[in-house]
């Protein structure tokens, strides 16, 4: 398995189990992610891939096993959880921008309230981030006034404003119209070249081939493939992976 060098591993998961009531969503997931690595996570819906990345910042609570993020073991200790959430940015399928705040306030909220930055510093950083995601002119608007692609780019800027070590993307383009997918993927490509550690749940195969260092495939709560993208796409080992690929590549 890749990334066994413990010193380099920023995320370590050992035998992680998660149940929703009776439903066994994660069945002993063991993997690790090196600093700066780009991991794309594929799998059919209900396979546990979203649950897995949501466990990494404890939006879902795992019931068995260990998750260690940046040296901190995830337990019920609220201070540990808050500390990890500060270092882990997350981008959601449905953007989840705060509709009652302007774009700039969406981005500066956490740096001001959590990092305790002065407003001027936070705003300066926020404007730089808006520049980076390509929409500096939208700062004073409300999220509802933006297109889906613009909203998702604001959401990326909002996550980046906390200067995270790791970025989690939970199907960031699934709610977007086709012509807007590219603008979001372009931002993510740029982010990938900057050396950010990224975990991306997506169905964008082209993006996965191009950006990923590794592809994980989930099925029924288990990782069934863990390989570099070329190997995964050209030579899948598992029958389920072959079936899945033939469906999404068709």
């Amino acid at each position, binding site marked *: 398995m890749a990334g066994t060098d413990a010193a380099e591993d920023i995320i370590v998961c050992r035998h992680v189990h998660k149940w929703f009531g009776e439903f066994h969503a994660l069945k002993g997931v063991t993997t690790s992610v090196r600093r700066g690595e780009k991991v794309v996570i594929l799998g059919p819906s209900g396979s546990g891939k979203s649950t897995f990345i949501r466990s990494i910042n404890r939006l879902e609570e795992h019931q068995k096993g260990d998750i260690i993020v940046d040296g901190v073991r995830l337990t019920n200790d609220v201070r540990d959880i808050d500390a990890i959430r500060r270092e882990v940015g997350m981008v959601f399928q449905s953007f*989840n921008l705060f*509709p009652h705040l302007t774009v700039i306030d969406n981005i500066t*909220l956490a740096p001001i*309230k959590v990092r305790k930055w002065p407003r001027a510093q936070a705003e300066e950083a926020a404007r730089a981030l808006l520049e980076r995601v390509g929409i500096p002119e939208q700062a004073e608007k409300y999220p509802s006034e933006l297109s889906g692609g613009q909203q998702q780019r604001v959401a990326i800027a909002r*996550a980046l404003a906390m200067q995270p070590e790791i970025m989690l993307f939970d199907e960031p383009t699934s709610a977007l119209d086709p012509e807007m997918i590219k603008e979001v993927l372009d931002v993510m490509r740029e982010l990938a070249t900057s050396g950010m550690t990224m975990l991306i749940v997506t169905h964008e195969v082209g993006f996965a081939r191009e950006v990923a260092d590794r592809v994980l495939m989930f099925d029924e709560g288990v990782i069934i493939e863990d390989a570099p993208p070329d190997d995964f796409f050209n030579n899948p080992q598992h029958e389920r992976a072959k079936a899945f690929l033939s469906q999404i590549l068709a």
Partner: protein
Amino acid sequence: MSPEPYDRDLTLPPPRLSVGAAGWVRANLFGTWYDGVLTLVCAAALALALWFGLVWVFRDADWGVVATLGGNFAIGQYNTEAACPGKNCFWRPQVVLLLVTMFLGMSWGLTKSGIARTVAILVASAAAAFAFLPYSMEKMGMDVRVLLLANAPALGAGWAIARHTSMSVRWFIILGVAAFLLSLGLLRGLPGMQPVPTIYWGGLMLNLLLAVGGIAASLPIGVALALGRRSRLPVVKVMCVTFIEVFRGVPLITLLFMSQVLVPLAFPEDFPLNSVARAGIIITLFSAAYMAENVRGGLQALDPGQMEAARALGLAAWQTTLLISLPQALRNVIPAIAGQFIGLFKDTSLVYIIGMLDVVEIGRAFILGNPEYLENARELFVFLALVFWIFTYGMSYVSRRIEYHLGVGKR
């Protein structure tokens, strides 16, 4: 067949009878033959009602009873010989009114919004206009008139203070609470002043005191109860649910009775809470129980993704509640909150049940005590209805403006 060329403008005006006033009348009033009949019948009924109404208001009605009661509507028996022996205490409620006007002026200076300006100017000019009531000087002295006129400069003073100190919302709230407490102290009699027992407080002043205090206190209490009801701590949750269900499940009249009859039983005779305070507390808690359910409805309607996004950014639970959940939840339930406040204001007239002379009871007691006015009861109650309607419509107007104002970033 080739498609229509792109550069030709295919936009046509709509058929004439489907738009504009004619279109509206056609679609809504005379769409079918029975719509037409209904429209004509209703129009006739409305015209008749309006005609008889106007005839009564301007020809048959005798509004003398309203003029006779005059200041009693405003302050009840506050300035009678029994309430304030040997002194004139009318200036105290007037100073309270000046504080209110000043406060409205401050909210105008603070928000720079049209709502606060409209309300502030309306209230101040209405108060100042009362100075010109055609009463004899004996019935309404110069001092009263001057203090009423002073509402205009009070408005300006409040506005200027807020503008020049660039007052923060926090200070505005602190000053508001301080002004409310000062008003209560002034009415009751500050140290060194002639005390006026609360049993003499009455009239519209009593309704407004109970309503303002109740509204200001029931919103934060209601929010706290709503959050408590959603708490994961079982003790907190059970306590909040019990409180809400008890206060929602018992009629306000019963609660008011209990406060008057049971509380003195349970506490020593010199228990410091007077009947106004007790009524105020009961009305506040009653309203807070309903408010809690309104707010809870707003919280439940929120997309869980909002909280997840906030938590994922590292905001603590209390920050998420304060900065993300509550602002959105409260905005979504403004109509319900406004309805609750309007209900609370109207309910303040129920304090007659524990022997207090609110504005309605002042009128009723006057008619009962002066049978020669028995025939004028109709005029009296129409006037009271108008008074209540003016205040409730004002609240409804403000809530609609706030809704519109906050709707900017609505999804």
